[in-house]
């Protein structure tokens, strides 16, 4: 997306303008925004999502080789890497497999890390889920004990027992 004012540089700042209660989006490059006095030091007016296309666009010649395979298509949705660059979005879950090699450095830049460590769906994970979840809960339990949060610790211990297949007092699922 190009800056609305100079139409030359990429728009990196995105504002919501409200005139007579009507909202309009304004997209500017940093230079034009500064000239128009739109930027003060109050806070950064953009979220990382808005910066996305620039994440995909940035880069010199080194990246050309990585992003060179524009003909590669996701077999499930038909998206090319060009489509991803253009929209800053992926076409389907399988795109993460198809374009993994190209996506990893970008994810690293956006997210800092590339290894999920949160919730795992029970159905998919199965045993992996179970052992991961038990480990996670045990860490939480240790922390709770260290903080002397005994009520929370008791809850966690019950949860761990439940997952390990040991009986707890049978409250139904919510």
């Amino acid at each position, binding site marked *: 997306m190009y800056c609305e004012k100079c139409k030359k540089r990429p728009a990196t700042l995105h504002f919501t303008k409200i005139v007579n209660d009507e909202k309009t989006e304004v997209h500017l490059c940093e230079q034009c925004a500064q000239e128009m006095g739109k930027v003060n030091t109050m*806070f950064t007016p953009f*979220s990382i999502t808005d910066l*996305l296309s620039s994440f995909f666009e940035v880069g010199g010649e080194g990246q050309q080789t990585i992003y060179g395979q524009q003909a590669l298509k996701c077999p499930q949705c038909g998206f090319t890497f060009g489509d991803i660059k253009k929209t800053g979005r992926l076409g389907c879950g399988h795109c993460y497999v198809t374009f993994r090699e190209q996506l990893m450095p970008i994810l690293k830049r956006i997210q800092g890390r590339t290894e999920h460590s949160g919730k795992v769906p029970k159905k998919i994970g199965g045993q992996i889920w179970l052992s991961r979840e038990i480990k996670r809960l045990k860490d939480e339990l240790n922390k709770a004990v260290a903080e002397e949060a005994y009520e929370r610790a008791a809850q966690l211990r019950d949860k761990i027992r439940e997952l390990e297949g040991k009986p707890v007092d049978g409250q139904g699922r919510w």
Partner: protein
Amino acid sequence: MVNWIKNDGPNSDVVISSRIRLARNIEGIPFPIIMDDKQAQQVVKIVKDAIFNSNTVLAGEFIDLEIDKLSDIDVQRLVEVHVVSPDLVKNRKRSAVLLRRDETVSIMINEEDHIRIQCLNTGFQLENVWDLADKVDDVIEENVKYAFDEQLGYLTCCPTNVGTGIRASVMLHLPALTITGYTKGMLQTISKIGLTVRGLYGEGTEVAGNMFQLSNQLTLGQSEEEIINNLTTVTHQLVDREWAARENIAKHDRYGLEDKIYRSYGILSNARKISSKEAMDLLSDVRMGVDMEILKEVDINTINQLMFDIQPASVQKLAGITDGAEQRDVARAEVIRQRLNKK
């Protein structure tokens, strides 16, 4: 009337609301950005079935808003009260929203992702809100196979959501920190620790009503609990600093503070025509006055409710008027006067 805002949340003086949003997609179906109408219908059906046919109390708690049949003004109103996201509106002909009757949970179908679970409540209660979102997620997952990758976690349309798919946020009212200029530095520091702040209701970089939304920026590599703990810690600090700043102002310029609060209250109670920006700023003063027990003529719930009800579509709906900014400004002033002068 906004239903969820009526709940009495903990620590609701500075923290107006806590929200968790989870992004999920169904395996094997393209994301909304490129799916066709048939696939869109298929997703709507899968998610509706997962909720309404589940063997949990949830099944009876939700209603289908039938958002494709609502008028523009009704949909805009839902956005203003934070029940529905602006992105969903763009795509609403093939979207659906399942709303829990008390408005604390909305499941948006075919927004940017197939499924967006949003849980929202008053005050500072991120953990409760997360527990609820987690449960709703579990219920859906019983009948839906999510797009999930061992390494990358939940797969989302936008790579800024991949991993946990979680966006945790709190809506903060920071009048004293804004007056004292503290917010400038604070907001820059915050972006360095993986959080994002944005002003709410503002024009450009300006903030109306001294309202800020603080949320996590990163979704990959940290667990949901870590993300929530991080946000909670920073929120606690901001609440403490906001109160320290308020007490400082009260100590050094008591009359100035009272004067500002009562003037704002006076304008709101008497104005015949008012823009949403002016109303938000004045309500901010009054809200601080009520929190600090300086102004006792009005209760905090009335103010909280008004902050939502004075937004454009809400005013139009409450006053039953058609478009037109001037008409709306008159209707807005009337709504405010009625609420503030009601004993």
